[in-house]
């Protein structure tokens, strides 16, 4: 495999919230075409790590170097409830300096076109999540960060989301996904990072390993660190 330049390199990243240390000395590189799954128990620092990588939080120590644009899909939709899906996307498109045409493309791609002119408030969880992903994809980011992207989605919505992400990965875009849903994501991810109590213990390629093998590794790492 060709050694590509990483789209993101985190070196010695730590983060505190007030007096609470949430991340310790995280070193991480994400390459183009890589889909990294971050696993770890609740409170391990997954969300904080993603927010630091996105640039929404400043690391308390260490540095994050980004090449190209970085987008994020979080728990919250980052959309305005009283505006329609199209209005929301058009607003963010203006901020990203992206043509309006791209908004229509993404609405189509994520299966939102028929309801694009309804308020986001009226959307189901699955629809909202798809709209949130459409928003994140507006600038065609080099790196997409996703925090629990499948939580609360039905099979149909999960399918749409996974297909979109797989297409992205195949186009050489990178992504990092924090999730508990290992089984659903196995077909998508190329590497797994294990996070425990704010430390990134290991990052390992999946290399065709099955869910059981990775779960076994997860349990042994969480038990012995």
């Amino acid at each position: 495999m060709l050694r590509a330049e990483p789209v993101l390199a985190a070196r010695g990243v730590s983060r505190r919230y007030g007096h609470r240390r949430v991340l310790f000395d995280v070193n991480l590189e994400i390459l183009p075409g890589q889909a990294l799954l971050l696993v770890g128990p609740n409170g391990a620092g997954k969300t904080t790590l993603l927010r630091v990588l996105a640039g929404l939080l400043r690391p308390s120590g260490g540095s994050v170097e980004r090449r190209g644009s970085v987008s994020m899909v979080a728990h919250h939709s980052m959309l305005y409830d009283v505006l329609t899906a199209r209005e929301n996307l058009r607003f963010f498109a203006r901020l990203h300096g992206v043509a309006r045409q791209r908004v229509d493309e993404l609405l189509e791609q994520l299966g939102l076109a028929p309801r694009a002119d309804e308020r986001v408030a009226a959307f189901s969880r699955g629809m909202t999540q798809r709209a949130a992903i459409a928003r994140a994809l507006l600038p065609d980011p080099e790196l997409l960060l996703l925090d629990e992207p499948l939580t609360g989605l039905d099979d149909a919505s999960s399918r749409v989301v996974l297909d979109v992400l797989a297409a992205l990965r195949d186009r050489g875009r990178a992504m990092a996904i924090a999730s508990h849903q290992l089984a659903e994501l196995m077909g998508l991810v190329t590497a797994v990072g294990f996070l425990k109590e704010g430390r990134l213990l290991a990052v390992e390629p999946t290399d065709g390993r099955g869910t059981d093998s990775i779960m076994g590794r997860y349990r042994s790492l969480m038990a012995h660190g």
Partner: protein
Amino acid sequence: MGEMLRAAMAIAVKDLAVEWRTKTALVSSLAFAVLVLAVLFFARDPTAVSAVDVAPGALWVTFTFAAMIGLNRAFLMERENRALDGILLAPVPRTALFLGKVAANLAFVAAVEVVSVPLFVLFYDVPLWDRLPALALVIGTATFAFVVVGTLLSSMVVRTRFSEIMLPLLLLPFLVPPVVGAVQVTARILAGRPLSEAAGWLRLLLAFDIVFFAISTLLFTATLDE
């Protein structure tokens, strides 16, 4: 610079679109303005104090308190679903966010003022129409002053509990120079005096606008998550 203003404009237009959808803040502010104008009219002894004497104070109490109802709205809408993160992730300078919020808040308060002034003329029977340009000047400079400071403060207080109380508590000391100045100038305008008589007050208002616009713009990034 052009890019910054374009982003600021996009944010302001979006803010107003969100407000226009619900009109909650706008309707409450307008209703509040009418109530205050009416109540203050009766809060005097009509045999001793003529309406025109209390009119300037009434006008500015109405404007500032009606504005305060709307100011928190600008950042509260960003808290819901944390849309603010979406804006911060976009490649726009954070100052553009502040400028956009100030512009939207100015438009909001201006809308309240445009409705309040005719009511004010009607209720207080003040001869005003020929002095409208002068009044517009003082309303513009003073409104800018408290909207700029109020926008900065609301960016912080929406992160606290009791933000509805916290905003007036922090904002009122900053209202002293612009509101006292505006009342003084308004009183002279209503009395038919030349504007040059209030030159000192106008200078104070202008200086406040410039200084606090600069410092609020500088400090704004410190109010965002980091």
